[in-house]
């Protein structure tokens, strides 16, 4: 097939395909799919896991800070993922300062209010492995949904785009997981939830390297 023929074939295909339908704002697709998957994760938490004992007296500092950090992480990562889903999109990371700042602020507050002798017990908690696995597992449906939405895009840095989708999924899952997490310390959150989010980020990059190629 010579180039001229190809151009005419593509042009004749133009008429038969409804671009208008695919050209709707891309954020809506990503938002809808990740939103639906988040509901799946939320349902899993509500139906399968016991509610956090700390919720009984209203959300305390731990839940407040970690939910806020997770939510801002997800919001920033959503923006970064969307940006990278366009061919000319570049990576922006300044927004990471927000969730990091929130987490560090909460950590500082907690450590200033608790005796240093209790830090080790707070950091390890009672269920480090379970929480790590839960946050990772709850992120997976959201990550898959985000990657499905992104297949329609054209990321020229698929791994980075997948990593951002991983942060998005991890942020949502970490925020939702506060509804269950039996631990009441940000030291615990920083040492177990954060690595879980990073694991999902890595998985996202790995999967996107295969799935998002075009």
């Amino acid at each position: 097939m010579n180039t001229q023929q190809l151009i005419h074939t593509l042009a004749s295909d133009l008429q038969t395909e409804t671009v208008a339908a695919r050209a709707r704002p891309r954020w809506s697709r990503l938002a809808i799919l990740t939103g639906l998957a988040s509901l799946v994760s939320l349902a899993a938490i509500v139906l399968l896991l016991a509610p956090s004992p700390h919720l009984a007296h209203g959300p305390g500092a731990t839940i407040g800070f970690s939910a806020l950090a997770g939510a801002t992480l997800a919001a920033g990562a959503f923006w970064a993922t969307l940006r990278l889903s366009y061919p000319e999109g570049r990576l922006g990371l300044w927004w990471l300062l927000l969730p990091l700042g929130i987490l560090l602020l909460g950590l500082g507050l907690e450590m200033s209010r608790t005796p240093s002798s209790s830090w080790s017990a707070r950091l390890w908690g009672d269920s480090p492995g379970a929480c790590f696995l839960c946050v990772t597992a709850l992120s997976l449906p959201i990550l898959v949904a985000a990657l499905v939405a992104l297949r329609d895009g054209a990321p020229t840095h698929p791994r980075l785009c997948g990593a951002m989708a991983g942060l998005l999924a991890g942020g949502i899952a970490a925020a939702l997981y506060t509804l269950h997490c039996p631990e009441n310390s940000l030291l615990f959150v920083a040492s177990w939830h954060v690595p879980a989010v990073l694991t999902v980020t890595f998985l996202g990059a790995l999967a996107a390297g295969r799935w998002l190629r075009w």
Partner: protein
Amino acid sequence: MQDREQQWAADMRAAQAGSGEAYIHLLESVSTSFRQFAALDLRRFGLQPSDVEDVLQEILLAIHLKRHTWRTDHPFAPWLRAIIRHKLVDFARRRHRRGELPLEDFPDIHPVAPVEPSFSAPLRHLLGHLPRRQRQVVEELGLGGASVADTAMKLKMSRSAVYVAFHRGLAALSARFERDRS
């Protein structure tokens, strides 16, 4: 430069609204401009000057398959440049993985006309060497004369996948055809 950007953007907007004419104009203009500067780009990615049409076709295909990712309120040139770069990298990676030797190293081999899908016995034999998907698509589209939409439905592939398989299949066929003749 500025004129070209505006022309491209206008053509693409018209194309997205369904104008085949504007689309052909756009793709031809992009081809001309790519050929102009291709030598430098190809060398930078370790490709040969003879690769220009193959790479260009991959780029045109990518523009077509991803045209919905251009936002009408954004400049067209950066979008295009990103796609061109991506396809150059992709092409170079595939080329180097296959360990193909550039034709230039064999001055006695002259490039032959691209294979027309007329499918004589030797071509049928060549078809056997293609990966299954590519073979099926080339058979359906080229031999059977089916439309892209029908082929996509029959093979349960997306239209984009059919395009890509057809294009790569033909490219592989013509490469093998040349090798067998030499």
